[in-house]
């Protein structure tokens, strides 16, 4: 039995435990009294506040009951926000108005052109924010570990994300931001080349903030190799080698970068590639438990690395999204506690959510503002720890400034202008309909866990294309539903109106800028031509000897480009063999 069947059994066992405790509460007076006392204390601690028009509200809304069974079901089955099994929220107060500064959960993804272009966008996006929260999109060549001068990538440089070839590009990317500030955090969406890119990030920071700054750097890098194999297809090295490079990086970060989340276990791309909401949650959680198993297998301490794992989910308009975060938090917490014996910090399913790109359409594209707003509402109802809202023009282009601003303002409207999340926690959480849906979603997630288990676990199933074929089937069904009209999409198959293709501004990188990047790279390579071969030789020997590749990369990237690093590592471990 793999760990996944163990988790499924643990969740079933926990549910049975909750049910039996609820019975016991109704039967045994002593237990009922004990629960009543806990309930009374929790209630008494809750502060009260007022809406702007004067309506009093508790900062945490608890179910209006004193029935011992119902209390047991709530406290054990859902847990108050910030308490096991964390169905309601990972933390006690989430987005509640604290009157002072605090960090906003908004984190907007940006990347275009050259490093200085994206830097300018970063300054624009954060100009109205209290904290520095940056999120980086890389261009295609960077995502595949290739240099901007690689044969055949000509038109791709700086398209759809920023072109990063060297540590110097990384310096330009974050120029003008104090990354050592307590409220600064940086997210980087990159996977196969993540170790080299994070090494450049640390090396660039050391150049600016001093040799010892790594411990102060805060943020996350996606680095989820399993979902790459299953859905996103940006994978360069064979699976085993990719996982080794990743684990090297995670272990280094756990030791040296206490504020860094070295992996963001992602369902987003699984969903965008076609998965249903339930499949997204099941595959993502299963991948998460697989990483825990892998790291533990290397001798790492779950208490040390467990709290550094975080998650990233898609949020679309399907009804299951109402409860997906709740179901995931609960399964993760129970699995980590009861199967992996992890402590409270490692039980938290810390969630970043992005609204669904797939749900956006180009027909009547301004309707995308409404779609994104509703998805964002769902994401906050799921108590996401941070959110990215898509821009309405994304079916056409990397977001232009205008629509990026509207997307960011949507977040402020939901969190600050509306009263839904400012005054009371759980205003809308845990209603009867939600509970029914949550149980069903949980049951189906556990069903997929058991299927994966029968195939020998995530890695074995992945080798047989199990996840890929499920995702592709679901994606095909989705398109057929749109085609037949069963799945209404306004403007596309309902209320279709003829309109000219909208005139949107396109964020494209002109060839002159692309040439500039290639020229800079040439200068860098020429300047380091004498030092690079020795650095690559050291990298190669560490890789062959089984040492920590990430620790070596910190030196390699001082004099080598991303493409040079990729070629060197590929020479040792080979290439990934893609799957249909």
């Amino acid at each position, binding site marked *: 039995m793999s760990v996944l069947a163990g988790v499924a059994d643990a969740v079933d066992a926990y549910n049975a435990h909750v049910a039996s405790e609820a019975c016991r509460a109704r039967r045994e007076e002593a237990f009922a009294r004990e629960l009543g006392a806990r309930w009374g204390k929790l209630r008494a601690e809750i502060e009260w506040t007022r809406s702007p028009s004067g309506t009093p509200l508790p900062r945490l809304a608890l179910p209006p009951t004193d029935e011992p069974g119902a209390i047991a079901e709530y406290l054990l089955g859902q847990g108050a926000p910030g308490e096991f099994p964390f169905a309601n929220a990972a933390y006690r107060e989430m987005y509640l108005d604290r009157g002072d500064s605090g960090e906003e959960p908004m984190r907007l993804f940006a990347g275009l052109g050259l490093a200085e272009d994206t830097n300018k966008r970063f300054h624009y996006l954060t100009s109205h924010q209290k904290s520095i929260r940056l999120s980086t999109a890389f*261009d*295609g*060549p960077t*995502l*595949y570990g*290739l240099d901007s001068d690689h*044969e*055949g*990538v*000509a*038109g*791709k*440089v700086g*398209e*759809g994300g920023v072109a990063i070839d060297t540590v110097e590009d990384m310096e330009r990317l974050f120029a003008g931001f104090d990354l050592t500030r307590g409220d600064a955090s940086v997210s980087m969406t990159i996977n196969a080349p993540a170790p080299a890119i994070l090494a450049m990030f640390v090396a660039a920071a050391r150049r600016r903030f001093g040799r010892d700054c790594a411990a102060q750097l805060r943020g996350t890098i996606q680095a989820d190799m399993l979902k790459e194999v299953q859905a*996103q*297809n*940006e994978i360069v090295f*064979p699976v085993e*080698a990719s996982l080794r490079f990743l684990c090297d990086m995670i272990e280094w970060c756990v030791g040296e970068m206490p504020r860094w989340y070295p992996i963001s276990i992602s369902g987003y791309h699984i969903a*965008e*590639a*076609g998965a249903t909401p339930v499949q997204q949650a099941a595959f993502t959680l299963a991948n998460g438990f697989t990483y825990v198993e892998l790291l533990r297998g290397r001798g790492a301490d779950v208490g040390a690395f467990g709290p550094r794992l975080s998650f990233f989910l898609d949020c679309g308009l399907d009804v299951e999204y109402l409860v997906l975060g709740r179901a995931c938090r609960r399964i993760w917490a129970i699995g980590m506690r009861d199967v992996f014996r992890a402590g409270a910090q490692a039980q938290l399913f810390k969630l970043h959510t992005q609204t669904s790109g*797939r749900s956006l*359409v*180009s*027909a009547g*594209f301004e309707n995308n503002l409404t779609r994104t707003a509703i998805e964002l509402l769902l994401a906050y109802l799921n108590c996401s720890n941070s959110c990215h809202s898509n821009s309405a023009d994304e*079916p*056409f*282009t*990397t977001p232009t400034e205008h629509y990026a601003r509207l997307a960011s303002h949507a977040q402020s409207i939901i969190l600050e202008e509306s009263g839904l999340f400012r005054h009371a926690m759980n205003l809308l959480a845990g209603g009867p309909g939600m509970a029914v849906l949550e149980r069903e979603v949980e049951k189906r997630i556990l069903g997929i866990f058991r299927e994966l288990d029968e195939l020998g676990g995530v890695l074995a199933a992945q*080798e*047989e294309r199990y996840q890929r074929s499920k995702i*592709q089937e679901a*994606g*095909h069904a989705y*398109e*057929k539903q749109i*085609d037949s009209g069963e799945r209404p999409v306004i403007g*596309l198959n309902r209320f279709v109106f003829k309109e000219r*293709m909208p005139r949107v501004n*396109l964020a*494209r990188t002109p060839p002159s800028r692309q040439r500039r990047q290639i020229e800079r790279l040439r200068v860098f390579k020429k300047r380091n031509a004498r030092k690079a071969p020795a650095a690559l030789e050291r990298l190669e020997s560490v890789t062959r000897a089984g040492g920590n590749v990430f620790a070596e990369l910190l030196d390699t990237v001082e004099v080598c480009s991303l493409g040079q690093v990729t070629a060197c590592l590929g020479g040792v*471990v*080979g*290439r990934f*063999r*893609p*799957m*249909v």
Partner: protein
Amino acid sequence: MPLCDGHDAAVTTINVELARHGVEVIYLGYHCAASAIARAAAQEDVHAVGISSYNGGHVVFFSEVVSQLRARGGGDIAVFGGGGGTITPADERVMRRRGVDRIFFAGTPLGEMMTSVTSRYARVPGPGAGLGGDRALARAITLAEAAGQSGKRMRRPRESGKGAFVVGVAGPGGAGKSTLIDELTSRFLRARPAGRIAILANDPSQPDSGGAILGDRVSAIYTQDDRVFFRSLATRGNVSGVSRATPESIGILRNSGEFELILVESVGIGQDGDPFQVFGAGPRLVNAMLFVLAPHYGGRIQLQKTSLLRGADIVALNKCDHPSAHAARAEIAAVLESNQAGRQMVETIAARHHDPGVDKVYEAIARMSEGHAARGAAGRGRSAS
């Protein structure tokens, strides 16, 4: 999909629909260089190339594919594609000027796309006079496929004496045949720095529509080399595990004198018939037979019943790091012993980079090939023995 693009949600759906509409789709997968697309198009002798691009840079990339096709004598091959909303009408105008045939904009119904592709690009292949290089070979195979389908009598391959050594590769689905073939290709490219290798990969057609998704190229990472000729063949209703055109295709490749080694992959046993009938019955089409098995092949009884190993010159026990490999090894050894001598079993992990087991399989093939060439030179042996 273009280089640096992994967005395959649209393309996988469109592939399924095309196959349902009777189209044979040669799927190349994601992150493909323009040169690799053009090479594949020429070797597969396709009617059209479809590109799905979601990561920008499409104007440059599509144009590059068009010019690479022209450079390889495939200027008649149409290029179409789409990229949701990322390809604007203004882009489309530029792309069409540069030779792209059609762009499907966001929101085009699947049905319209299918009608357009099937009506615009379907045509009977001509004799291919004037075609050169790989495209000429490819056209000859296309004509053999058409003849095989119309029930014309197939020619047996003629002897050319030019020395191509032909290896048939069979085994159950999921054993890792494609991976092993690709790894053998990389060994060949290293060992024979000037030689060419050809691969014929058979995949099943869909019984109802006649279409197929031929995806062997996706995982064949070492075929991206002009010294490799790779051709996908759909079985088109033939139940023996290989296309009816296989014998003649082997002959075409052999007679071209271009290739030192030809690998013929059959459809996985259990997927579609028993390739033994083709590879093994009567005068053999191949010089040697390589069987690929994975440890979980289903136990001894099945092994004996299907007589899988009887005609094999080499048995590769692939995925030999699997926990059940121990039992499989003993069983296969017993069967090989109870049959004839001279057959060998090699344990491989084809999925592993630089696997020494694969080296051994390659060496065994190279030895047989040398022996074959020596016999041919001495004028004694039959070249297809």
